[in-house]
């Protein structure tokens, strides 16, 4: 597969790179990727997900067709609340509207003219993204500006078979004292399986607030890897919620650095995996500044031969005194073919800290089911109610009411699909 990808890359690089320097950096990225290959379970970060095997099973070939044009008419996929939007179609910028904001305070540009990103680190999918990314977003929320409505980045796909591999980058800088609620929404309208590989970077400056929500409406044959790298500076707050219920493979990889004093990071999520899906949430929170706080709560429900994984790490630097770290993962397994793996990790080098983590997995509480049945619910309905109650606990952590409501509706629909 790598050999084939190499040919694809060479013709891709000729078309996309306008300058030799850019082409060179892209090739360096690709070469480093080719050395490493797709990640497999020998790597600690991929211990529970053998991506190499997953992609070889699911994808016969990886293709990119830059000339492809498809008929497309945008309709608002999120109707529940007013929002600003930026639309990407098949990995390229399409249109935007900032109806609710002062446009002078939000600066943005797409990334299709360059620049290129130097190869860094050993995350081979990130290197692959650096080599292949076609477009993306660079956005600044100016100092002191508080966005009135959430911004939704629509990532829409309606492709044919010869175009099934997409790489994207979103880079967002929330400047001093500013605020942004951001939703990244991905949807695949056709039934062609795609592999979406994104690599995002967020910077939250002094007293800034960024709330990031991921909504994934891809199809059940799609693969999605999301890398979010977040830096939070003094008194900044980063909030993240992930609802993971679509895609055959979905891995959300969050690396959050609480760089300066009094910064905080909140990462919460709910996984509802079924029908052979394989979902993973991986977090790595790095406490560097003093008096930093992190909070993670991940709830998972697994049904019908699915697999879910939580790998969470809280790292506390030796200078990060007065750190408060909390991490909780709970899972309910509903059938005999499903599997839940977790690795909640603490790595602590400072003494004046308070860090706890917990992880449980088990089945639904039979006593609770019995109670609900005695109240007249069928066993099936009782189960659904308990599952909903279990996952809503994670959704309750969302601090934006409109978005919380949207998520609750979405979850309700998903659970109603249960059989």
């Amino acid at each position, binding site marked *: 597969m790598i050999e084939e990808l190499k040919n694809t890359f060479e013709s891709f690089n000729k078309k996309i790179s306008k300058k030799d320097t850019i082409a060179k950096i892209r090739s360096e990225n690709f070469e480093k990727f080719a050395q490493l290959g797709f990640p497999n379970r020998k790597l600690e970060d991929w211990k529970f997900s053998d991506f190499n095997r997953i992609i070889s099973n699911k994808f016969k070939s990886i293709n990119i067709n830059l000339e492809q044009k498809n008929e497309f008419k945008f309709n608002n996929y999120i109707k529940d609340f007013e929002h600003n939007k930026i639309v990407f179609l098949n990995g390229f910028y399409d249109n935007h509207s900032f109806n609710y904001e002062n446009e002078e305070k939000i600066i943005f540009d797409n990334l299709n003219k360059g620049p290129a990103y130097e190869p860094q680190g050993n995350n081979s999918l990130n290197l692959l993204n650096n080599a292949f990314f076609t477009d993306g977003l660079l956005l600044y929320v100016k100092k002191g500006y508080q966005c009135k409505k959430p911004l939704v980045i629509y990532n829409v796909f309606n492709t044919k078979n010869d175009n099934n591999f997409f790489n994207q980058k979103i880079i967002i800088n929330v400047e001093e004292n500013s605020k942004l609620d951001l939703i990244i929404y991905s949807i695949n309208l056709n039934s062609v399986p795609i592999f979406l590989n994104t690599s995002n970077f967020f910077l939250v400056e002094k007293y800034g607030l960024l709330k990031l929500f991921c909504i994934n409406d891809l199809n059940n044959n799609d693969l999605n890897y999301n890398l979010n790298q977040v830096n939070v500076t003094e008194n900044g707050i980063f909030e993240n919620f992930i609802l993971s219920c679509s895609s055959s493979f979905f891995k959300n990889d969050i690396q959050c650095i609480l760089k300066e004093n009094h910064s905080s990071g909140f990462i919460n999520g709910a996984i509802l995996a079924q029908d052979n899906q394989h979902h993973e949430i991986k977090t790595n929170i790095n406490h560097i500044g003093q008096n930093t706080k992190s909070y993670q709560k991940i709830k998972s429900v697994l049904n019908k031969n699915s697999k879910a994984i939580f790998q969470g790490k809280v790292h506390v630097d030796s200078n990060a005194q007065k750190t408060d770290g909390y991490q909780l993962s709970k899972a309910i397994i509903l*059938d005999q*073919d499903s*599997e*839940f793996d977790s690795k909640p990790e603490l790595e*602590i080098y400072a*003494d004046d800290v308070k860090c*706890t983590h917990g*992880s*449980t997995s088990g089945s639904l509480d039979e006593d609770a089911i019995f109670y609900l049945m005695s109240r007249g619910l069928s066993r099936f309905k009782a189960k659904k109610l308990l599952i909903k109650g279990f996952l809503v606990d994670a959704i309750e952590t969302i601090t934006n009411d409109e978005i919380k409501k949207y998520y609750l509706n979405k979850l309700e629909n998903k659970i109603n699909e249960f059989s």
Partner: protein
Amino acid sequence: MREKELEKLKDYKYGFTTDIENVRAPKGLNKEIIQFISNIKKEPKWMLEWRMKAFNRLQSLKEPDWQKPKYPKINYQDLYYYSAPKSASDKPKSLDDLDPKLLETYKKLGIPLQEQNRLNNIAVDAVFDSVSVATTFKDKLTEKGVIFCSMSEAIQKHPNLVKKYLGSVIPITDHYFATLNSAVFTDGSFVYIPKNVRCPMELSTYFRINASETGQFERTLIIADEGSYVSYLEGCTAPMRDENQLHAANVELIALDNAEIKYSTVQNWYPGDKDGKGGIYNFVTKRGACRGKNSKISWTQVETGSAITWKYPSCILQGDNSVGEFYSIAITNNYQKADTGTKMIHLGKNTKSKIISKGISAGKADNTYRGLVDINSKANNARNYTQCDSLLIGNKCGAHTIPYIKNKNFTANVEHEATTSKINEEQLFYCNQRGLNQEEAVSLIVNGFCKEVLQQLPMEFAVEAQKLVGISLEGSVG
């Protein structure tokens, strides 16, 4: 100068060496050495073949490097693989024949073998360097049919048992250090408890590394037949040396139907000096198999010594309703490093496991709990509870928790919780106010923190362990 030396002695009271003539094999790891070990022990042919198989396998294995405490590369060719007190080459028949210097050593260690014979109700097998030198209380044990002897003796006298069980829990194809041990192990203890016998006393082994540049590779095999019970204690010490010494032991436990094995360790190998020079590398493989229904294996460990401790006493819960337990205290001070924990592999139905781990880190030390709980798809109604607490003393040390939890069965219930914190200032203040100095207060609080685990130890060991906890943390506050 003398004061300095005295100071040194105060730190590690087992830091003496004993002047005893040793028989040593030449340095190096090769087929000849294995032949030499096998010859000198007058082993049967099958044993030599077994060792050779392990040695051949070793050639294709790589030393693991995923662990947290890194160490300089060990030159395996520069080690002595066999060292025995000379007097042991024709083995003493009774304690009276023992080299008096040896007896003296054991007295210093707090295991007066002769007195033990009469006073305590504990049978002791003492392993000096790599060779078992004395086993006490034989008669009383034989009466009950319990076999408690050195490994070499077992190979001679009970070959069928050894053949059947040796390597059945830790196969020779296992990881690097286990395979190395299989190839070159020199001695160790062998215990067999017959059907429906409750071993009348605690069995105990004391390990001691005396010679320099020696690796110690002992092998322990405990078999509890149907309906039997045994409690086994293990203690270890080594002299102070500037070089690092390797200790790679294998311990295999087998519990058949309704049997119970309780294995306790107080590990106090030389931890190296204040600047992290010297000390033992304690890379041990311990694994127990609950083969039978309703069987139980319980590991208790107090790890205070060694420059690097790297071990995961594990339970393979094969039999239905079997139980695995792991209680651990790991204390690291100065430059010590520990990467320890357990593996609980649930295969049978209604299997239960419990893990209680307490890590204490002081000075510039690093303490890691790493564990695996694996619930197989057939382990219906399996249950696991894990609790890992870490305590940090000072801001130059580290405490880490890395649990791996795999659940493939929807009727299973797995719980894990962990906390990390420092010693509560208010508790310290309270102790100070009651007249305890800082060090006593810390020792008291830490002992309280470890209580859950200390309670699991047999009485005689619990007292020693409590003292050890205090001693290990000396100099870490103030």
